[in-house]
């Protein structure tokens, strides 16, 4: 695996994790739970 490809995998994992959790927090707030 190339260095750039490896970094892209980690980059994508961070992007998905951060954006996913942010959406989750907003949904929890909107649901009022």
């Amino acid at each position: 695996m190339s260095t750039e490809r490896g970094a892209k995998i980690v980059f994508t994992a961070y992007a998905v994790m951060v954006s996913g959790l942010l959406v989750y927090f907003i949904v929890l707030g909107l649901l009022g739970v």
Partner: protein
Amino acid sequence: MRKFLRDNGLSLGFGLLFLLTLVGQAFAGNADLNHRRLADGGDPVGLWDFVVSSDFAVDVAENWQSEYLQFFLYVLATVWLVQRGSPESKPAGRIGTESDQDQKVGAHSTENSPRWARVGGWRTGLFSTSLGLVMAGLFALSWLAQSIAGVSAYNNEQLIDFQDTVTWGQYVLSADFWNRSLQNWQSEFLAIGSMAIFSVFLRQRGSPESKPVGASHTVTDESG
């Protein structure tokens, strides 16, 4: 796999630490909430109910927004502000966005430059500010998440105490919202200022956040 782990050790290591401490925060936050609920004569909530609650969301989001604000401002401020003698700063002679030659964009790009740095126009302009824009965007989204989860958590507490609830607009002007925001911001700004000035006179051998141990106190932009 070994090469992948070594090449990405910093981001993978901190990502793992993030997940472990997030789980720890869930347990500690749940215990803290239950302690307060029981003291007020209320019912305790289970761990899962806490993790899918606004109480958990607002506690996490309020810290996220301040961290992304910190890095957004740091990325932006270090373009224009310098700290002579700090490895966190560039030399005073390079204040500003620098020349295309310095930044290797457009005609000055190399064959290894990213494509959007080579092509010029709006794509190079956008790519040139992409780090700051993403940090700013994540700050804005985290702060929005804090406000939306915050008003929900706040109103839940108000209902338990038989008090009036507030709208989102009222909440973002409330003491609770600004106390949560400012208590995080002040610590981030102190940490940045401390790092900028401490790294002038103190060293951490082998860290790129520090100058080489033997570097002069007045040398700027030299990593060890």
